[in-house]
């Protein structure tokens, strides 16, 4: 007879660790003594997974109440498990949208704070944390503390982008963005190569509050990094159709794909089709916010196409100081390493924000998805060496492979963060699989 397998938990990359998510509407009670809190598990790596030796993680998703909303000011306070999906569904038709949103709406407020998420408007509006007015945290010694840019400001700063390590976020108060209509005006263009792509991305920043793009990282030579740049802004009331955008039915990937389904050939075919689907050089028109912000949310569980072994996303930011060719050098490196990717997304980043470990800095962010193989660790190590040399850093919400010494090399702000953590949690009671791996926390 086979022994029962221990329960496991995984992030979006499907990398599994022994773990159990405990859920309750009463997040305050649930987090008492908890080692970590997770939200919707949309971080790819091991940041939402328990440290080795511990099974239970608090799950916030049932704590999803709006606690206050002021329609005059657009300030909203809600429990940490409230999702951006609910936020947009409830408030878009009333003229409000999340001030910053990642590429999926299935994230909680707690997750948005802990990752200090960025969106297509980073060059204009910064990270999510720039719009947060106050946080209620359960800190390691069991106390409940309210912090803000003026009350316990160091705790506040360390919590933005602090991957849940400074305390359990119970409530978030933040400023919604007022939007003139529930529609997006977009313009997209085909760009022949990666240098032209980066130039076009930077040039678009002045006129467009939101930009994003996809590039093909499999084609070589002169086609290297050909891509599609998409620019958007909220439609003014007079430009928008009279009817509200409709949300279509969602498709779901019902089971794990066999691991051979994604191979360099099928990825190449996907990239080819995706590029040439955009056969006009330039397109423009109206789009629903769902199609614009969350193209992948239409397919639930799309991560299952990677099969049982799962995948990782490598996301780094390269500073402007690294020069115009930095993205091409990254692509060359990736091609040389043989890291085939389905999606390679390059985004524009504005200046570094308030969060002590917040990811973006002035430059560009590059993200590539990679199916896990025996070579993944080596590829990540090599890319990290490149990123360190260019003066960049990686995004902890996506990471599962970076080595602690590399993280330290790319993160001069780490000591400031650790000092705050030492003050509020000297015994490092709150920890995760990621903090054990990267910060040397005990198990």
């Amino acid at each position, binding site marked *: 007879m086979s022994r029962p397998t221990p329960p496991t938990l995984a992030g979006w990359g499907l990398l599994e660790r022994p773990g159990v998510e*405990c*859920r*309750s*509407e009463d997040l305050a009670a649930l987090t008492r003594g908890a080692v970590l809190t997770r939200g919707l598990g949309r971080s790819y790596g091991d940041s939402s997974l328990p440290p080795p030796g511990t099974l239970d993680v608090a799950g916030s998703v*049932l704590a999803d*109440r*709006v*606690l*206050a*909303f002021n*329609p005059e000011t657009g300030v*909203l306070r809600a429990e940490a498990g409230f999702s951006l999906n609910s936020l947009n569904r*409830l408030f878009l038709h009333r003229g409000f949208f999340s001030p910053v949103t990642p590429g999926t709406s299935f994230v909680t407020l707690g997750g948005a704070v802990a990752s200090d998420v960025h969106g297509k408007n980073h060059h204009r509006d910064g990270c999510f944390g720039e719009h947060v007015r106050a946080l209620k945290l359960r800190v390691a010694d069991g106390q409940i503390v309210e912090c803000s840019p003026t009350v316990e400001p160091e705790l506040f700063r360390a919590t933005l982008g602090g991957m849940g390590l400074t305390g359990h976020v119970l409530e978030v108060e933040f400023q919604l963005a007022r939007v003139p209509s529930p529609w997006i005006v977009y313009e997209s263009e085909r760009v022949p190569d990666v240098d032209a792509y980066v130039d076009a991305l930077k040039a678009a920043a002045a006129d467009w509050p939101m930009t994003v793009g996809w590039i093909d990282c499999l084609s070589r030579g002169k086609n290297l990094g050909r891509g599609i740049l998409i620019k958007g802004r909220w439609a003014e009331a007079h430009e928008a159709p009279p009817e509200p955008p409709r949300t279509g039915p969602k498709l779901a990937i019902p089971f794990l794909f066999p691991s051979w389904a994604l191979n360099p050939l099928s990825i190449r075919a996907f990239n080819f089709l995706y590029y040439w689907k955009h056969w006009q050089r330039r397109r423009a028109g109206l789009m629903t916010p769902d199609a614009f912000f969350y193209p992948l949310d239409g397919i639930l569980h799309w991560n299952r196409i990677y099969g049982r072994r799962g995948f990782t996303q490598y996301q780094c930011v390269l500073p402007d100081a690294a020069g115009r060719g930095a993205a091409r050098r990254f692509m060359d490196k990736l091609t040389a390493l043989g890291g085939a990717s389905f999606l390679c997304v390059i985004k524009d980043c504005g200046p570094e924000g308030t969060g002590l470990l917040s990811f973006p800095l002035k430059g560009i962010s590059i993200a590539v998805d990679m199916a896990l193989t025996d070579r993944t660790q080596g590829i990540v190590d090599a890319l990290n060496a490149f990123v360190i040399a260019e003066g960049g850093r990686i995004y902890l919400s996506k990471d599962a492979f970076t080595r602690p010494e590399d993280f330290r090399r790319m993160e001069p702000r780490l000591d400031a963060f650790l000092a705050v953590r030492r003050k509020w949690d000297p015994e490092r009671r709150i920890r995760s699989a990621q903090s054990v791996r990267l910060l040397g926390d005990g198990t």
Partner: protein
Amino acid sequence: MKAVVLGGTKGMGRALSRALAADGHDVWLLGRNAEDLARSVEDLKARSPSVKVGAAPCDLESPASFGPALDAADAGLGGFDTVAVTAALFGTQDQLEADAALLQRLLTVDFAHTVLFCEAVRTRLLSRGGGRLVVFSSVAGERGRKPVVLYGAAKAGLTAYCEGLDHRYRAAGLVTVCVKPGFVKTGMTAGLKAPPFAGEPEQVAVDVLRAMKRGAPVVYTPAPWALVMAIIRMLPRFVMRRVGF
């Protein structure tokens, strides 16, 4: 509708209250924790600013609280026409077998006191020409099954009560809707391993709201459970004795 929800602070009751308010109905929450009720009222107000929302204390463990709670709901809503009861206690078979005090509480809350509460509602609604009573029972009350002997017995009693009530009073205007959820991912089932067809509270709320409008006497929700239970109802006794569910 002007709906009262006992148990609306959590789980399926929370989802149902939100669905009712979003659909334009006034909602009055009943529950045992005042502070928690206040937070849920704020939630409903922020989500659906145009409907009337309020709350009053009511504890299924204390029947003395039922009358004042219904008075408060009547006053707050200007006379309610619909009452949903989602509140209940759960315990696994192992817990209930091991703890007689817990068992007594569960049998009392989930059956006796729930019926007393429904009776208080019945007299009120009938005195003004009828209305809707929506009672959350469970698929656990459908057959005697090994993993839910005790909880299932309480729910079986509740199901029988709902059926009888509906037969007796529908003609007089009181429509009774018996909701039989399958496995739904709420705090109640948080520690348990989810079977196939496990549902979300939001799905349940959509199904229940539709059934309330149609006046359906019985709702299996989420929908696949209707088929699952149709099969389980037909299984001969000797098969039920062997299987583990």
